[in-house]
């Protein structure tokens, strides 16, 4: 095994172990699980609405709590090393600073994978429970009995493997946010600043494509201004690349074309984010 692999895997492992022992993971994962467990309480919906609601509710819960986990865990990981001064013993070793950043990112990426897996399994359990309840209610409904084809269609919608692709796209989106949060951590002196800035960037990312289209389409704007907007749109995240997940939730049948754009976009952004973070982190002094 190469020395580089050993250094990366050791620090990634240490990051994972640190996060598993910190309250932040459980403070986010437990409320997320509790939120999912409220799903059976929403019953005043039609059978079809109920299935759509279940998919949206579980994906939304994963999306919101996953975002909090990605941003807070990343912001705290670096600031904890600075506050506890472990960074001095870690960076005193023959370890490149980019290796430190990559290992932190990979460790948080593994934790996110772990968290999303747990929430996906929990969602599947809830789907099974709800499906059983709904079917029992539908069979007992004498006024609007469901045909076997309808039952099969609903079951297919609920257990569509495409939903896993939606979760995968969500994971890529969260990994992008880990990258941005790491970037802000390299300049910030407080984790609060990093968390706030990252949340702002996330919001901007969701508004970006609409705002860009509006600005580029407006006739009163100078060419120079359009160039500035164009440049900003490259630097700021564009979350429309991850809209495939929402389309899957709406019932679209996904192909590779749903996965390749978010995969490529995440990879491209992580590359420049890592380059810029390393440049900043290399020049940062630790007093």
């Amino acid at each position: 095994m190469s020395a580089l692999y050993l250094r990366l895997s050791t620090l990634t492992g240490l990051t994972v172990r640190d996060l598993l022992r910190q309250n932040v993971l459980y403070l986010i994962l437990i409320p997320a699980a509790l939120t999912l467990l409220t799903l059976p309480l929403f019953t005043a919906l039609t059978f079809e609405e109920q299935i759509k609601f279940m998919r949206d509710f579980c994906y939304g819960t994963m999306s919101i709590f996953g975002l909090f986990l990605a941003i807070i865990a990343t912001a705290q990981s670096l600031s904890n090393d600075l506050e506890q001064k472990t960074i001095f013993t870690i960076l005193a070793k023959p370890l490149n600073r980019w290796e430190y950043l990559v290992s932190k990112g990979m460790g948080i990426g593994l934790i996110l994978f772990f968290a999303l897996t747990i929430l996906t399994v929990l969602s599947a359990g809830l789907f099974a429970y709800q499906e059983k309840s709904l079917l029992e209610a539908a069979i007992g409904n004498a006024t609007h009995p469901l045909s076997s084809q309808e039952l099969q269609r609903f079951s297919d919608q609920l257990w569509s493997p495409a939903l896993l692709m939606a979760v995968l796209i969500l994971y890529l989106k969260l990994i992008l946010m880990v990258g941005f949060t790491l970037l802000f951590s390299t300049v910030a002196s407080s984790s609060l600043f990093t968390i706030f800035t990252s949340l702002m960037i996330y919001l901007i990312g969701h508004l970006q494509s609409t705002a860009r289209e509006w600005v580029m389409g407006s006739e009163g704007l100078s060419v120079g201004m359009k160039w500035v907007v164009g440049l900003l749109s490259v630097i700021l995240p564009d979350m429309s690349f991850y809209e495939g997940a929402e389309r899957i939730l709406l019932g679209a049948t996904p192909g590779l074309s749903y996965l390749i754009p978010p995969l490529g976009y995440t990879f491209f952004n992580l590359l420049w984010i890592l380059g810029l973070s390393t440049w900043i982190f290399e020049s940062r002094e630790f007093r």
Partner: protein
Amino acid sequence: MNSSLSLQIRNVQARYSLAWNRKAMVALDDFSLDLKAGEIFALLGPNGSGKTTLFKLILGFLKPKQGSILIQGEKAGTRKARAQVGYLPENPYFPKYLTGREILETYGGLSGLSRGVLKDRLEPILELTQMSSFAEKPLHTYSKGMIQRVSLGQALIHDPQLLLFDEPTTGLDPQGVDLMKEAMKKLRSLGKTILFTSHLLEQVETVADRIAILYQGKKLVEGSMNELLKENDAATIQVKGLSEEQLSGVKGALYDFGASAVEVTPRSGSLENLFRRYTK
């Protein structure tokens, strides 16, 4: 670069810029130092004199505003240079849930050591630091002295040539101090170079080959213990075979009194007095 030098520092200056455009504070000014393999060098100075700043410059945590630092010929701050440096911080912090052995393995991994190399390195380090009896226990059960031994172990795990010990004996009990001093002497015998800081002057006196005193970022004095502690205007006269009465008039003509042996050697003061004289 002289190839026999473990550390070569030339005219280094470090400054801390202050907020609101106030004048930058000079933490270390025109500092030079050469350390050879197999010597123990002590940096003395009051708090804020620039000792820890120097360590951070050597490790690349700070960048000098001028001057150069070479470690075994490599520019300070580079990965190759850090491969030659072991650092024991003043207040080490390690994850409390890990055992002493796991800490050493983790820091070995961070140095890029394979399991095979680590296995060979661990036992001699556990022996030198006398950690074997508690290496399998988690850190939250450790005393300050035990944590300091783990910290010493992690500093040595990648077999560096230059060792930086920041206040290595502060807060330790006498047994802990003795262990640290013995470890330093053993490491010197293995050809390692040790640069350390301390406020405990008596302990410095017993292990250091050379010292320097820093004050407000400037090096006031540097030299070997023997040179610096020699007082030229005073001498100790040791006589043998004289009674208490005869000793009273011995200064003028010792041999006239019939002494069988007279030995005159330069008198040494204490390191503490030297330190106080320069930093008062």
